[in-house]
């Protein structure tokens, strides 16, 4: 009779049928490997390889091709723009997340109410998200323009101020304005996601709460909120990473200005790469940003919500 070791040595096709279970196991493992191969390759090609390439770039002087060690990193860290950019990125990400969560939640709860035209409202909600970023940027540039923008028209006619406000040009207003424009774009999506989570909460729990005498606030706090909380932790991570990485809208609206007030890390990296033509420094800044996000993600995963019970 053929032993187990023999079976694997002589190959599957020549095995006698008696060795069935062993064959099944071996074949299972190798099939599993084969099946996961495309995904593994894909990850290698689209994620690991480009990252390794950028990481490699950060160690070279891209213009001369010479190995420079940590020089690029030192160049980035000693740049007077770096720390302010980190600060802008943090303010950008946190304010976006807070505003989007609060407004998205309110709108989501509102959508969850039954009212006439709710379905139409839901469809309309997708519009800001469907409009291309370039169009959003152009549209809002006009609307907040200090000489002919509709907002300034309203501000002047309502008497809120007697001089027009240069929303994107004034260092005090630039970042808040860009944040709000970005929120305009994302809040409806957040609201729709929250709405869909709300739809999944069993009605009977709400009914039980009503019978047990819970008011609106207690119902939200003890039933709606715990249900939202769970899904929101996962979405929160995604949202943070997505928001942190946004470059296009900021670049199109302010190009990082005025006086660097909206120069977030992605904008800084772009400037290193294409403004200063220093690809090595851009790569080093990218690696630093990647490490920051990685640490954040790892810390985030320590949350209890992510632990499998």
């Amino acid at each position: 009779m053929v032993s187990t070791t023999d079976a694997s040595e002589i190959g599957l096709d020549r095995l006698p049928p008696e060795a069935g279970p062993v064959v099944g196991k071996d074949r299972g493992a190798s099939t599993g490997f084969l099946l996961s191969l495309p995904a593994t390759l894909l990850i290698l090609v689209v994620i690991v390889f480009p990252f390794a390439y950028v990481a490699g770039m950060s160690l070279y002087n891209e213009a001369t091709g010479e190995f420079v060690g940590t020089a690029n990193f030192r160049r980035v860290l000693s740049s007077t723009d770096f720390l302010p950019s980190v600060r802008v990125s943090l303010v950008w990400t946190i304010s976006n997340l807070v505003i989007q969560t609060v407004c998205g939640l309110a709108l989501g709860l509102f959508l969850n109410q039954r009212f006439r035209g709710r379905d139409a409202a839901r469809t309309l909600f997708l519009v800001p998200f469907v409009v291309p970023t370039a169009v959003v940027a152009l549209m809002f540039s006009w609307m907040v323009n200090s000489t002919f923008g509709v907002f300034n028209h309203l501000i002047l006619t309502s008497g809120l101020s007697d001089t027009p406000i240069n929303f994107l040009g004034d260092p005090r207003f630039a970042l808040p304005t860009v944040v709000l424009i970005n929120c305009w774009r994302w809040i409806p999506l957040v609201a729709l996601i929250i709405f869909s989570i709300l739809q999944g909460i069993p009605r009977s729990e709400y009914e039980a709460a009503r019978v047990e005498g819970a008011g609106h606030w207690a119902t939200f706090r003890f039933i709606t909120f715990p249900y939202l909380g769970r899904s929101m932790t996962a979405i929160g991570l995604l949202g943070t990473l997505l928001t942190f990485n946004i470059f296009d809208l900021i670049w199109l609206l302010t190009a990082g200005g005025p006086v660097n007030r909206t120069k977030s890390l992605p904008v800084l990296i772009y400037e290193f790469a294409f403004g200063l033509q220093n690809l090595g420094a851009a790569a080093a800044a990218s690696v630093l940003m990647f490490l920051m996000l990685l640490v954040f993600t790892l810390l985030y995963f320590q949350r209890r919500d992510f632990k499998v019970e």
Partner: protein
Amino acid sequence: MADVGLLGVNKWYGDFHAVNDLNLAINDREFMVILGPSGSGKTTALRMIAGLETLDSGEIRIGGRRVDPLPPKDRDIAMVFQNYALFAHMTVAENIGFGLRMAKSPEAEVKRRVLEVAELLGLEQWLSARPRHLSGGMQQRVALGRAIARNASLYLMDEPLSNLDALLRVKTRTEIIKLARSLQTTVMYVTHDQIEAMTMAHRIAIMKDGVLQQVGAPLDVYRTPHNRFVAGFIGMPQMNFFEGSRLHRDGDQLSVDTSVFSIPLDRRVVAPLDMGDEVVLGVRPEHIRLANPGMTPTAEAVVDVVEPLGAQTLVYLSAGRMPLSMLIDGHIELVPGQVVQLTINQDSIHLFHPGTGSAVPTRTLEEAVR
């Protein structure tokens, strides 16, 4: 502790009449079971009493107080939902204590009451568990616990046992009865299981298509069903119905004749029926017996299928071309193909109008003389 009154209650879902002119009075401390097949409007009726559904017309009173305009929390009710509806993100203790906390009871009082209820239901070890980690039976108890932790005037239970396995069902059934007794409270209990209804109820209200069919004590409903639907719904195995039977008079002797056998009647039919009119004869399987030798049998039949249940045996037979079933003592052995003689006691038969299905009232001669 309260009596409950439903007065002309109606509920429509669009064109669908889910509850049709429901009038029902439940006594203080009564255990009232609402029984009916799927879709008969039982849940709808219960939800209207709870305040989870609005009435289209009619009135609901609890303890003499009109409650139908009030929200659930002002009706002084507790409810056990069909699917438990436990709060998924709360522990067992938090579930049980939720109502008390909402009522702003002092925290010490809530803790004491939660422990008391947990002890009563055998949930002490599970107090800090989440509902989804519990078995169906345990979840059921938590749902019960949440309902009884508060003192309500009226407890509403919507098929609370339907998700349990057979054994647990019987056990929990007994527990609920004991509980209701010890709480000295009014209970409305919805089920589509007639055994639950028969064993638990003080009175049963039977519904069909949103219409209340009959209200009565379990045995009354069993013995004198008001219509063919109730007769068929209550009793296991189901009552035999012989369609196309006729009332027949031969001299002084009244009888009801099916196409193959005839049952003499010493009773007067007190209904607008003439001799020769068609009726539906109903006989429960447990009221058909094997004829003793020497007796004049009512009918002759051939055994088709024998289903031993243990103490009793259910036998399916054919009398001529008419199928019927019979419940006999478990120690009697019959074999398929065997020809048997049957007797049917005339006191145990039921007559129904073929069209309306309502019971044909009859009176014995003695009753008529009295």
